[in-house]
């Protein structure tokens, strides 16, 4: 990885010029932040919901005096508002878990590489075990054991994610350790903390940075999947995933809007994250070797 490209990325994280994914992602973020201001209904407030208007098709004007732009779900919640609020949950869960997961994973990976021996063996055994299983299973086991709740989901997603970072960071750190500049650092008998934080870590996180958008996309999808399986967020505070799940049963009966619109929103969110991530990755790694 060229230092110039990294510097360029720091200076201008969103790269040159606008593009649809960047715009979309920006719009998603904005919508999530201002959701309470623009949503016509707070779908998490039972007092604002008119149950008898459940399953209204898009365009119905309800008791609240506004139009259900995308229809209502089986309990009378405005789909458009549900999407806006669900977006908040999806983003908060995934961003928090990705950030903490990256932090934990990077520290673990670099420590494993630097200390070697049993530290390495223990950390990497856990990582290997975890990565040899599909993420969905790890997440399932974690959430089943941890129990329901948004904080538990975040925890489960951290558990799922840290291993990837740890493995990548360890790999990079190992190859960095072999570089002469680290030999030079060791020859100066620098304190271990200085070697790790001044030399090893700054040079090992760059590939992990490229991982963050991918993992963020994964986290959104995984949270949605868990919620879809009924193991995720509380039922009265639907995320995008559980909103889709709520509508799944109605899909076959023609009330397509209940799951179609949240699904589209979810898909657009993940796709825009992935496209922006792809863009960042391409600029950091011009040969785009990583998948």
């Amino acid at each position, binding site marked *: 990885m060229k230092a110039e490209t990294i510097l360029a990325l720091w200076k201008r994280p969103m790269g040159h010029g606008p593009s649809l994914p960047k715009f979309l992602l920006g719009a998603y973020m904005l919508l999530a932040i201002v959701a309470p201001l623009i949503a016509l209904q707070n779908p998490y407030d039972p007092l604002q919901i008119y149950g008898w208007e459940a399953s209204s098709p898009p365009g119905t004007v309800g008791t609240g005096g506004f139009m259900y732009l995308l229809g209502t779900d089986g309990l009378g919640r405005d789909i458009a508002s549900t999407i806006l609020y669900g977006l908040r949950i999806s983003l908060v869960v995934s961003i928090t878990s990705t950030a903490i997961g990256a932090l934990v994973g990077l520290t673990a990976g670099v420590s494993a590489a630097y200390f070697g021996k049993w530290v390495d063996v223990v950390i990497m055994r856990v990582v*290997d075990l975890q990565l040899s299983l599909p993420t969905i299973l790890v997440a399932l086991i974690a959430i089943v*054991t941890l129990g329901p709740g948004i904080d538990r989901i975040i925890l489960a997603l951290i558990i799922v994610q840290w291993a990837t970072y740890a493995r990548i960071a360890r790999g990079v750190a190992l190859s960095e350790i072999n570089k002469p500049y680290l030999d030079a650092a060791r020859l100066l008998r620098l304190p271990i903390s200085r070697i790790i934080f001044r030399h090893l870590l700054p040079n090992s996180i760059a590939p992990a940075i490229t991982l963050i958008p991918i993992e963020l996309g994964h986290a959104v999808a995984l949270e949605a*999947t868990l919620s*879809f399986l009924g193991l995720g967020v509380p039922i009265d505070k639907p995320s995008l*995933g559980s909103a889709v799940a709520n509508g799944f049963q109605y899909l076959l009966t023609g009330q397509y809007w209940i799951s179609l619109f949240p*699904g589209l929103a979810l898909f657009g969110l993940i796709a825009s994250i992935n496209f922006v991530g792809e863009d960042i990755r391409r600029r950091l790694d011009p*040969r785009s*070797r990583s*998948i």
Partner: protein
Amino acid sequence: MMSTVTGRLSQAFLLLLVMSLIGFVGIHSVGNPVYNIVNIETATAEDIRKATIALGLDQPLWRQYVLFIGNVVTGNFGTSYIYHLPAFRLVMSKLPATLELASIAMLIAAPAGTLLGLLAGRRQGKPADSAILKASVFALSIPSFWLSMMLILLGAIMTGWFPSGGRGPTVSLLGQDWSFLTLDGLRQLTLPALALAIPNIALIARLARSGTIEVESQDFTRFCRAKGLSSRRILFRHTLPNISVPIVTIVGMQFGGMLAFAVVVETIFAWPGVGKLLIDSIQLLDRPVVMATLTFVSVAFVGLNALVDLFYALLDPRVRRSA
């Protein structure tokens, strides 16, 4: 060679041990399976107590675990609380359904992904490449549950081309029931197989693409061109074999994943496979079945890894040690 075998075995053993512990503790902390076995609406407290004792659930957890390990050593995973069948036999009976689903999905994904990847890699930077790349990002962005739902919406509800779920009629072969041998069975297979295949096509295509670019930027490709080979020959005779190692790895791993944990797709398409059995059993707290499934899975993973290694040796002479 010996050390890799023991390494593998010890890893399998470790995997099994960890999974069984997690499974045990996890299920124990979640709830009491007894409530799924007795009719909660008619049973008395006494009934529940008796059933708990009968299942050995009154024992301290560590003793249950020791007992379980002891039984596993003799090949006995216990009897399903719910189905009252030997747990392992139950898992095995679900295997054909999963196996055929995963195989068909991989048979679609591997060639399609590889070809798309080669094409994109060859046309790096050209419209075909960026189209394939973009499509792959899209394909990888669709959560599998939503992909499955959309396939049902498009392939079943709107067009009526395919059934929306369930497994088709089966034909017995080699003592197992397979549904891909009947026309109807294949139709039932199509949508779930596609749901599993699409993300894998994207994954393999991206891998093949980056492999192609990497291999074709190497000196030997340049040398091949300098020595007068046609680019077609280079692609199929040199590039393809050289990118096949990572592809085989990912195919192996993904196949293993599908075999065990096509949870979401199997659930949505009501496909009676191992993944569905696992998630049902987790929900029903049917511990023997959960444990048997996890064991099968860890063994299958290690087996598949060994198979992938074997493939490496076939593909790469450098790996072939003096036999």
